[in-house]
C-alpha cells in the first residue's frame, strides 16, 4: 500500500520551497459570520521552525483563525497557505502534516489513553508497521506511561491536556496549531506544558499558538501577534513590542479612586500613556519625563496588550 503523505514526509529535509520558509502565510483574510466580521483583513507569517503567539482578548478572532488553517472554517476573502499548500483546495494534504490541539477537549472519553492515540495514528495515516512505535513515543511525550490503559474519563485535567497534545504529535507533524493550550489549568501543569512546547520548538516544529495568557506568549513565542476585533494591531518579538509601545519602565501609583483619576489626568497632560491595573494606575512611556511617586517596575507585555486592545473587553 502506498502512503503518499508519509512518502512526502520523508522529503521534508530536502532543501526546499523558496516562497517559504513560511509554515503559514495569510494575506488579507476575512471571515464573516452573518453581520459579525470575526477576522478582518488579517496578514500573518509564521517562519518555519519558530513559534508565533496569537494574543488577544476573547472574541478577537484567534480561534476562527485557527479553524481556517485546517479548513474547518472557510475564509470569505484573502489567501491562506499552510506548509506551502493553498487552502482550502489542498487542505487535506496540509492537515496530514499538521497537529491540532483544540481549545475544547475532544478526546474519546470511553477509550483508554492508548486507544485514543491508536485511533489518531490511523486517522493521520501512520503506516501500520510504525504505529506502535509512534504510540509509544507519544505516550512518552505525554508522560503517561503508567496510564496507558486508563480510560480518559479517569484522568486528571492536566493528564487529559497532555494526552491531547500527545495525540496531536503522534504522526510527527511539521506544524503544530495550539488553540489556548493551557486554558483552565493549574500553574504547575501549565509550566509543565510550556516546557513540552518549548522542547518541540527546539526540535524544529513550527508552532502557532493562540492564547490570552500574556505570560504564555511572552515565554514561548518568538513573535507575538496582538489581535483585536479580527485585526492585527501589533507584531514583533515580545521584548521589542514592550520597548516600542510601553517603553522600558512603568510607574505604578496606588491610591483611592479619586487620587488615581487625578494621577491619570496629569500624566495624560504630560503626554504619557496610562493604564488602569485594577487597584492602581500604571504610567508608561516615561521617557525621562516627570512622574509622581510610585512603584517603579519594568514595562511588560501586559501593558502593551492593554494599551493596544483597550481597557474594557467588549
Amino acid at each position, binding site marked *: 500500500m502506498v502512503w503518499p503523505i508519509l512518502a512526502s514526509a520523508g522529503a521534508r529535509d530536502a532543501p526546499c*520551497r523558496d*516562497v517559504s520558509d513560511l509554515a503559514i502565510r495569510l494575506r488579507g483574510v476575512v471571515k464573516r459570520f452573518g453581520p459579525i466580521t470575526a477576522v478582518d483583513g488579517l496578514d500573518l507569517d509564521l517562519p518555519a521552525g519558530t513559534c508565533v503567539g496569537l494574543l488577544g482578548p476573547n472574541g478577537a478572532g484567534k480561534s476562527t483563525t485557527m479553524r481556517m488553517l485546517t479548513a474547518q472554517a472557510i475564509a470569505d476573502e484573502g489567501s491562506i497557505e499552510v506548509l506551502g499548500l493553498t487552502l482550502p483546495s489542498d487542505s487535506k*494534504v496540509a*492537515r496530514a502534516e499538521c497537529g491540532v490541539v483544540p481549545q475544547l477537549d475532544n478526546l474519546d472519553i470511553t477509550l483508554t489513553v492508548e486507544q485514543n492515540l491508536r485511533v489518531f495514528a490511523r486517522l493521520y495515516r501512520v503506516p501500520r508497521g510504525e504505529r506502535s512505535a509512534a504510540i509509544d513515543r507519544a505516550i512518552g511525550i505525554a508522560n503517561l506511561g503508567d496510564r496507558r490503559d486508563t480510560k480518559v474519563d479517569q484522568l486528571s485535567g492536566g493528564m487529559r491536556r497532555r494526552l491531547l497534545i500527545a495525540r496531536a504529535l503522534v504522526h510527527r507533524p511539521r506544524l503544530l496549531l495550539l488553540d489556548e493550550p493551557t486554558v483552565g489549568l493549574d500553574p504547575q501543569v501549565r509550566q509543565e506544558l510550556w516546557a513540552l512546547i518549548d522542547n518541540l520548538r527546539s526540535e524544529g516544529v513550527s508552532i502557532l499558538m493562540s492564547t490570552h495568557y500574556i505570560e504564555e506568549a511572552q515565554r514561548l513565542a518568538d513573535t507575538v501577534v496582538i489581535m483585536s476585533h479580527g485585526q492585527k494591531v501589533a507584531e514583533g518579538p515580545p521584548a521589542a513590542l514592550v520597548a516600542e509601545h510601553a517603553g522600558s519602565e512603568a510607574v505604578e501609583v496606588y491610591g483611592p479612586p479619586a487620587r488615581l483619576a487625578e494621577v491619570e489626568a496629569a500624566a495624560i497632560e504630560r503626554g504619557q500613556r496610562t493604564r488602569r491595573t485594577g487597584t492602581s494606575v500604571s504610567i508608561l512611556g516615561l521617557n525621562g519625563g516627570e512622574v509622581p511617586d510610585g512603584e517603579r517596575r519594568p514595562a511588560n507585555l501586559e501593558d502593551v496588550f492593554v494599551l493596544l486592545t483597550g481597557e474594557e473587553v467588549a
Partner: protein
Amino acid sequence: MAAEAVSTGAPRRRRLGRLERSAIEGVLAREIINFSSFWRATTFSSIVQPAIYLIAFGFGFGSLVSTVGGLDYVQFVGTGTVATAVLFSSAFPAMFGTFVKYKFQRTYDAILAAPVDTEELVTAESLWIAARAGVFGTMPLLVAIVFGLDPSWGMLIVPFIGFLAGFGWAAFGILTAAVLRSIDDFSYVTSTVLTPLFLVAGTFFPLSGLPGWVHYASNANPLFHTVELVHHAAFGFKIVDLGHMAFLVGFGIVMWRLAIRYMARRLVD
C-alpha cells in the same frame, strides 16, 4: 508574486482524492475500537427484542389469526421484524450518535482536523452503522428459526438486505442530526416519520387490509420494501424484488448525499 511563479522546486505532494480508503478506514477504526466497549449490550438487546415481539405478537395475535397471506403468523412476523430491527439498529444510533459526536464530544472537530473530509466521515459512519444493521437486523430471523421458522437458502441474502437498508437509514439519521438544532427535536422525527413508517410497513399486519391509498403510499416507505424483500428471501423471490432492491439503493444514495451536504454545512463554518 514572482516568487510564487517559480516555486516549482516544491516537493511534489500528490493531491489527495475524495473518498480515500485510508481516511474511511481511520474513521471505521475509531468506531470499531469504541464498539468493543459496548457490543455486549447491543447484541443482547438485538436478540431479546425480536424474541419479545415474537412472543407478544406471534402468540398474542397468532392465537386469533393463524395465517396471513398463506404464512403462519410467526413466520410473517419473524421475517417482518427484520426491517424493524434494521431501523432500530441504524436510524436511532445514527441520530443520537452523530449528535453526541459533533455537539457534545466534539469528536468530529478532531476528525476533520485530521486528513479526513466530511464526505469520508459521513460515508464511513454510514458504512459502519450499515454493517451493524446487517448483523443485528438478521437476529430476528435467527430467533424466529428457534421459534419454528424453516431456514431457507434465500435467507443468506438477508444480512445484505439489512446492510443496504441500514445504509440509507444511517444516512437518514446523520441527516436528521445535522438538520435539527436540539436533541429534543428528535422526537418530532420519531413520532411523525419513523413511527408511522414502522407501523405501516407490513410488519405486524398485511397492508392488503388497508385502504388503497395506504397501499399506494407505502411504496415510498423503505421499510415496506425491506419487509417485502425479507419475506421473499425466506419464502421465494419474485421479479418485483428487483424493484424493491432498486428502491433501497436509491434511498441509500439520496440520503447519503443529503447527509454529506448538511453535515458539511454544520461542521465547516
